[in-house]
């Protein structure tokens, strides 16, 4: 099932477009990576996909349909180096992860229930930060902050997880643990995961698809094409690399 798609999207920040004629489909329940050299507009592609930027032309559709029974679909977004952005934020790791629950039910006003505490605990345990739950975010190391940010996205019970270079600041063991965690989210819960990464070789065994951004030669623009490994509409399960 199609979860998100971009059709002939062109976008640029100044008068020169940096993404040209992007066509991209994200299927439900796939683990996709976006790869490309620095400056290939990977983050821009994610922001367009999330609706944070409006394309010059073309169409972006994300989560337009509603899931029957489960209410509106939820997007967990972990921006690039979000942890470094607000380092002094005076909040405990637990408070921060719990804030992911606010968006989980689509209500910002209801009382928090026992279920919310359980999801918070689970998310903190999944990233191995449960023991440090009452520490302030500012006191954590870069890699730990990154984990807490991932935990907040997980606590949302997201249908789509969008991660921008999530393994930055993590050691090798943590990176592998992270890929396995994402893999389980995809296989067991049907979560769709889209991540930008520079660690393609080590992530490859877990991925369903790699979207590569390439430089287009004609016209001298820096622009991008997307290629899929096994065709856009192949069933996610069978197309594992």
């Amino acid at each position: 099932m199609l979860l998100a798609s971009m059709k002939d999207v062109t976008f640029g920040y100044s008068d020169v477009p940096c993404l040209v004629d992007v066509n991209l489909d994200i299927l439900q329940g796939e683990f996709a990576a976006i790869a490309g050299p620095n400056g290939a507009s990977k983050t821009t592609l994610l922001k367009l996909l999330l609706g944070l930027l409006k394309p010059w032309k073309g169409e972006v559709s994300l989560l337009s349909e509603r899931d029957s029974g489960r209410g509106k679909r939820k997007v967990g977004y972990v921006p690039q180096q979000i942890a470094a952005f607000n380092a002094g934020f005076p909040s405990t790791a637990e408070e921060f992860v719990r804030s992911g629950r606010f968006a989980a039910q689509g209500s910002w006003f209801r009382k928090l229930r026992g279920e919310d505490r359980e999801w918070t605990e689970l998310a903190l345990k999944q990233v191995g930060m449960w023991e440090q739950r009452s520490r302030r975010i500012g006191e954590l190391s870069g890699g730990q902050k990154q984990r807490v940010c991932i935990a907040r996205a997980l606590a949302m019970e997201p249908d789509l997880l969008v991660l921008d270079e999530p393994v930055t600041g993590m050691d090798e063991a943590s990176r592998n643990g992270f890929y396995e965690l994402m893999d389980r989210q995809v296989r067991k819960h049907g979560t769709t995961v889209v991540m930008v990464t520079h660690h393609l070789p080590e992530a490859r065994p877990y991925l369903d698809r790699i979207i590569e951004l390439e430089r287009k030669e004609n016209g001298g623009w820096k622009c991008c094409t997307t290629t899929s490994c096994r065709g856009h509409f192949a069933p996610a399960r069978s197309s594992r690399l």
Partner: protein
Amino acid sequence: MLHYDFMQRAFCAGALIALVAPVLGVYLLLRRQALMADMLSHVSLAGIAAGAYLGANPTATGFAVAVAGAIVVEYVRRFYKTYGEISVAILMIGGLSSAAILMGLNKSLNQSVSSYLFGSVVAVDRTELVLLFSVVLAGAVFFYVLRRPLYQIAFDEETAATNGLPVKGLSLAFSLLTGMVVSSAMPVVGVLLVSALIVLPASLAIRVAPSFAAALWMAMGVGLVGVFTGLTASYELSTPPGGTIALTLLLLLLAGVLSKKAYARLAQRNQPQLDKAEAAAIGPAAGFSNHTTLH
């Protein structure tokens, strides 16, 4: 001291400001808008000067101009997305320069100007108290009802937007409230020092408090202590209330930060074993785990 009518009003007004301004400050600081309060008060001064020049009620025109400034800064901020402080500088210049010109046009204003600049407890009249009370009430409702969206927006606006929050609207409402609080707090602490009440308790709280909720309560507590101590000192020593309150808050900030440092050093010396245990728990052993479901 409290036999005097004007002191009762000053304490009442001070308490009201001290409850809402520091909470506002915590969010302003986290949104990198610490100077916004200062800017709005300078812009508001232009409104006061204009009101006096045109023969309107200066409090009302100051309030209106501060609110207008809050709306404008929100749009300028969107224009300079990554440099939020530029919008503050631009509007501050606009406000202060027009205030200077308007005051120059109106010679009779000059003696009352100092009470606007540095605050005056006598300046708090009934109208201002009513205005202040309604603003504080609106602020309390705003901060209580929207505490969760505000938490997310204060951390990061982009993730808040992907969570479905109307970031622009909330941000504008927040700016409006800032303008309202700043202009209604001005009679007590004055134009030049109104930001002290907003910024100083908050900067102590976000440094010292163990959690976000604690930071909000702590900022309120520090604000109350600072205002009451400052007003009392200002009465006893016949000093301008704005300066006295701001200086008291500055001393509280200094004492708080220093005692936090001293406490941390003491804890380090006394509990080396606990530190080791903690280090073990934080060490590389804690990794991603394979729990996937609840229960």
